[in-house]
């Protein structure tokens, strides 16, 4: 567990340094994610080494955003004031995005013949 965790933290660390050092638009952990996919492609053994810890971590993904979510108590005045706008923006854009993504996928898959096997 410790070697896997160390490797994961190292990718985040390198991602953070690259993100800030090169002023990339991507946050450090996302750069780390991209680098780790690339590293796994170069060395498939790395993926096997990390898989157990990674899937264990991802199984509790929702836990990790509880502290930030509790931050809502600091934003109650904002939510009370702009609740309608934020609620409508979230609801409408989510419906539109799901529809746009699904319809686009189905249409392009039909045109290119990359249909479900």
């Amino acid at each position, binding site marked *: 567990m410790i070697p896997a965790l160390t490797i994961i933290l190292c990718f985040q660390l390198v991602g953070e340094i690259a993100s800030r050092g090169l002023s990339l638009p991507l946050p450090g952990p996302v750069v780390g994610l991209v680098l780790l996919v690339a590293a796994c492609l170069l060395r498939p053994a790395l993926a096997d080494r990390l898989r157990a810890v*990674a899937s264990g971590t991802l199984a509790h993904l929702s836990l990790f955003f509880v502290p930030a979510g509790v931050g809502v108590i600091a934003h109650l005045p904002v939510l009370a004031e702009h609740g309608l706008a934020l609620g409508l923006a979230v609801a409408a854009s989510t419906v539109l995005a799901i529809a746009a993504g699904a319809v686009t996928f189905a249409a392009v898959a039909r045109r290119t013949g990359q249909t479900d096997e």
Partner: protein
Amino acid sequence: MNDPALIWSYLTSQPLLWLTATLAAYWIGDMIFRASGRASLANPVLISVIILGAVLWLSGTSYSTYFEGAQFVHFMLGPATVCLALPLYDNLKRIRSAWLPVLAALAAGSVVAVGSALLIGRLFGLDAALLASLAPKSTTAPVAIGIAERIGGQPTLAAVLVLLTGIFGAVVATPLLNALRVTDWRARGLAVGVAAHGIGTARAFQVNDTAGAFAGIGMGLNAVLTAIIAPLVLAIFA
């Protein structure tokens, strides 16, 4: 130091109490989620946030005091984001065999998610900080928090909007996609992953395995794409 008030004031100044409370609240939330048969509305994060919010309010504890303890859990968002590389890597073959529809749907879903949210926010006159918190709401929380921080939003507000987006997307996806008569599980899953991140992905896995795998792909790819397009779209609207 056997005065309960002194013990309480000692505990509230240490990380232990609020770290324990965070894990306990999540445990309760997860139990309710399982007991409800994994209903989308019984989202464990939503339940934990309500429990902890009530406890903080009743005990008169500030968010910054709470965060002293909860920061250890919050820290794990970074490594967890890096871990998303594994499911992405494991599914690369499936992405390659449908790369054109995947990329087209990713681009459409991602741009529509950010663009329509900011357009509506702008019409209601939301200020730049609120728009910046709204922009990354379709990406998975750790990434959304990182993007919001980067483009001048409020990370905690962004996290709340991410949560609401995920729950709403998970609830609405199946009836919406049935109404649109999209029957390709890959299309349905990918769209939900792009629009409603991990909560949508968890929902997709409950419905169909192929949909779940493609939702995971959509969530991972959109984390990268939104980080790139959110600042660009925000520049148009803010």
